């Protein structure tokens, strides 16, 4: 009960201030010839290019920790595995959409956010509950939450020429560069970009070992990658068409966990990905449609040159192919609208290890929904259906899945100084991944999908004053996850397997607060804060020692507080991040505890105007300025204080 008092404290102290949001001034519906976006302010977080430049995140994962309700799990290092779970649902309940196309990986579930580049991101939107954009792919609209990314290279612009370039370097031998050019005369665009980065990754760390403090340097942690892509698009009277290709190659060493007294590590991971995609927007009177087609091949090679098996090594190579396509529509009337769509994904996995399965998955999605705008409330409802079956050229297959899932939202009209209430319920599930079903001893083809129920009540308040904008968003939520897919040791300590064993309840609250204060033309002040409380408890078995205990790796408290001061062209951004203590296993005992941490990053930036529509931004960044020793995952230590400097050029 004491914890709830703190939430109350937050609510009180922030109510006295006032505030506003980035999308604040846009009306309820944003309509252009082709785009129709129903602005849902209640639970979206939007980060734009300026935020990204100022924050200097290494990748998308680094950026998503800013999102309220997000729980980042990072295994450290550049390119290291990073996943984000929203509101304790688990990472695989979130979908990621880049330029209108969902990114899938049927082998691992959520794509590794540590390997998604941020340099070309113009805008990132995170949402749970009702989507703003009913033309998003169906799979993203019906998942537990989604992250929508828009890049510079794949969007139409007002200007004929757009150029972006970044160049930077920093501690542990980090170097990165990116350049993107888009030529966009009246009706079409073509763009091209390339990026590369590398790092030695040999950061120093310090971990407590009993009464001693171990100081070490991370070994076997080199990283390098490159990305490139081309895009083109054509606009015509009632529609637009885009087409693009993306390539990514990553070579990285895997440092593994810090094992006391044993610093040996020599594993390698090579990743490459090629993706062709196209999408098409078309409007017939009040009917807006968006269709897409995407074909991707992800190749991964895991190499352990000193594994103690008969061969003396492990050399596993995986090819995961995904082809997906779909169409979404919305029929828009002022008083009501109808929306829906279909999507199909076909994916397979090939492994050089012949004992591994060779599965092919067919996953179909369908959704229909409607919305009624009444004077007092807006009611939205959605029903989705999914059908999934699998073939396996090399063994048994899991059972076929067919499900129907509802979503319902009731939202009040705005009143007073733009206050609004919303109540929503979503039922969704995520399917087991190929790794969870088939991976050697670990996989279990009897796995059921993991079910999630989310109930949310939100209140927002977005008043606007002359020099002062405020944005207050608060939600309380209750989630239940059933048939949680978890890896547990089964046969003995070393032989783990995937099981549907968990059932968890989450009682949570989120508060997001943003204030913008423009004193005059010269002085600006922006405050972005959010706080999330999550009590996620194990309710699987009343006889278990972990019954009602906080689930492993879910912090009760997470908070972000970013403060930006800007004077003329110079600014400073202080970014604070707090995660409370967690448990490495479900049993909430002291020996399972991993300490909470508080991180402060500092950015100083100056913009040089190089003439009309052209500027150069110089950013100096210090991460973890208090040099705190911390870890998201036990034994995966993170770097102490580190520095970077970068230049960011923009033309239009």
């Amino acid at each position: 009960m004491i914890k709830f008092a703190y939430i109350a404290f937050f609510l009180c102290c922030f109510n006295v201030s006032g505030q506003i949001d980035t999308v604040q001034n846009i009306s309820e519906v944003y309509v252009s010839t082709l785009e129709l976006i129903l602005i849902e302010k209640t639970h979206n977080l939007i980060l734009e290019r300026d935020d990204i430049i100022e924050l200097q995140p290494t990748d998308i994962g680094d950026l998503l920790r800013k999102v309220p309700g997000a729980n980042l799990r990072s295994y450290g290092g550049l390119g290291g595995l990073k996943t984000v779970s929203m509101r304790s649902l688990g990472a695989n309940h979130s979908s990621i959409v880049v330029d209108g196309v969902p990114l899938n990986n049927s082998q691992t579930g959520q794509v590794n956010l540590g390997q998604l580049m941020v340099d070309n991101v113009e805008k990132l939107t995170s949402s749970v509950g009702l989507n703003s954009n009913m033309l998003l792919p169906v799979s993203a609209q019906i998942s537990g939450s989604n992250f929508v990314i828009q890049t510079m290279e794949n969007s139409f612009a007002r200007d004929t020429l757009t150029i972006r370039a970044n160049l930077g370097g920093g501690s542990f031998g980090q170097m990165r560069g990116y350049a993107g050019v888009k030529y966009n005369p009246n009706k079409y665009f073509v763009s091209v970009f390339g990026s590369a980065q590398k790092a030695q990754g040999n950061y120093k760390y310090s971990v407590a070992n009993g009464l001693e403090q171990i100081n070490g340097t991370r070994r076997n942690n080199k990283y390098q990658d490159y990305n490139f892509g081309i895009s083109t698009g054509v606009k015509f009277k009632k529609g637009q068409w885009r087409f693009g290709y993306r390539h990514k190659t990553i070579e990285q060493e895997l440092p593994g966990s810090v094992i006391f007294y044993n610093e040996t590590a020599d594993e390698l991971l090579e990743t490459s990905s090629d993706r062709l995609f196209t999408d098409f927007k078309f409007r017939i009177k009040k009917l807006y449609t968006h269709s897409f087609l995407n074909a991707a091949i992800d190749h991964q090679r895991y190499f352990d040159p000193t594994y103690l098996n008969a061969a003396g090594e492990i050399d596993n190579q995986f090819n995961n192919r995904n082809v997906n396509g779909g169409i979404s529509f919305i029929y828009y009337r002022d008083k009501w609208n109808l929306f829906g769509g279909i999507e199909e994904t076909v994916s397979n996995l090939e492994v050089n290890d012949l004992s591994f399965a060779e599965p092919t998955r067919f996953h179909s999605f369908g959704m229909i929904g409607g919305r009624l705008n009444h004077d007092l409330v807006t009611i939205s409802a959605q029903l989705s259906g999914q059908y999934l079956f699998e073939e396996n050229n090399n063994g048994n297959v899991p059972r076929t899945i067919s499900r129907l899932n509802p979503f319902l939202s009731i939202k009040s009209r705005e009143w007073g100084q733009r206050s609004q209430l919303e109540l929503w319920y979503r039922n969704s599930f995520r399917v087991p991944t190929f790794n969870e079903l088939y991976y050697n001893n670990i996989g279990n083809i009897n796995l059921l999908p993991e079910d999630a129920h989310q109930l949310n009540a939100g209140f927002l308040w977005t008043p606007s004053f002359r020099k002062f904008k405020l944005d207050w968003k608060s939600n309380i939520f209750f989630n239940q996850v059933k048939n949680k897919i978890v890896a547990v040791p089964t046969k003995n300590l070393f032989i783990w397997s995937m099981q549907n064993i968990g059932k968890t309840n989450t009682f949570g609250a989120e508060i997001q607060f943003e204030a913008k204060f423009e004193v005059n033309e010269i002085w600006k002040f922006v405050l972005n804060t959010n706080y999330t409380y999550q009590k996620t408890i194990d309710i699987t078995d009343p006889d278990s020692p972990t019954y009602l205990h906080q689930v492993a790796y879910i912090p009760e408290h997470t908070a972000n507080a970013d403060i930006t001061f800007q004077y003329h062209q110079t600014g400073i951004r202080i970014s604070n991040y707090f995660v409370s203590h967690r448990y490495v296993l479900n049993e909430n005992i002291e020996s399972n505890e991993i300490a909470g941490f508080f991180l402060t990053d500092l950015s100083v930036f100056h913009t040089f105007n190089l003439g009309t529509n052209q500027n150069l931004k110089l950013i100096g960044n210090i991460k973890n300025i208090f040099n705190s020793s911390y870890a998201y995952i036990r034994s995966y230590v993170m770097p102490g204080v580190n520095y970077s400097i970068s230049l960011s050029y923009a033309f239009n």
Partner: protein
Amino acid sequence: MRLISVAFLLLFVSCKKDVPEEVLVSEVLSNGTVVLCEGLFQQNNSTLSWINKEDASVSNTLFETKVGRQLGDTGNDIKRYGNKVYVVVNISSTIEVLDASSFQSIKQISMQSGGVAKQPRNIEFYNGNAYVTCYDGYVDVIDTASLTITARIPVGLNPEDLTVSLNKLYVSNSGGLNTPSMDSTVSVIDLTTNTEIERITVGLNPGRCITDSEGDVYVVTRGDYGAIPSRMVRINTITDVVVDHFGFDVTGITKMNNKFLISYYDFSTTQSSIGLFDPVSDVLENSSYLDVTGYTTLYGVAFNPHTNTIFVSDAMAFTNSGYVYEYTTSGAQIANYHVGLNPSKFLFYE
């Protein structure tokens, strides 16, 4: 700003946990039991618990308290030889050598070879030498006086357990890291020359090895955790031939005076049993000698000759802190102790 700082501060304060009171362990260990708790892979959380017989108190930080640092990752074996205690730590790839009475560290032997962790598993002693199975395919010989490695004897794939009989060392080659094509052999090493003289095929995935009062060696062949069940064989150490295959379920063997305790944990049904076996007549005298039906995960079994009692551990599905139960030889449970994660081996003090 101030409000935010205060809020953050409050969060910090609210997250502090009360530290439980630590049970004091006397300067010189006596009249109690050391329990090796393996912990879990990659968590650096292997611990030693101390059960004080006098007041039944338990300290779960024995190693850390006495040595000042942690044991490391996945302790796998603990044995005493002379005045020294040896703890074999598998993933940290070390052998911690401690003074048997004060429990102060004498030496930490790093078990690495050419930058690769040898992953030591189990230890046995003979004529002033310690023999350690290493997952990289060797048995290391350590001189217990100088505490240095004097030889590496190549054996089969991923050697697991070892036992001495008739001046020979029997080593079970599990091949556990080569799943599904595991090993099925026992290496026989002549302890005069420290070389392998024979490799006996015993059955898939050999594990626990033990020598009876007549010098016969019994080996558990753990099978493939599927169609091939976990069984026990007997090797005649004069002829080095497998002379008996026993048909009962078994995953562990523990010596109790001249008898064996036969433990079995069935991971698919989570049922456990402990039977009594006579290695002289080679008969399973009682298939449910101790009542362990309520166990979640039967793990370690040991007989305490000083108190004539049996210690059995429950690993609680491998992810929760474990329990140790103490029984009389007539099967009555007389005590239980809450210990660390995955308690597996015991070391008894008078």
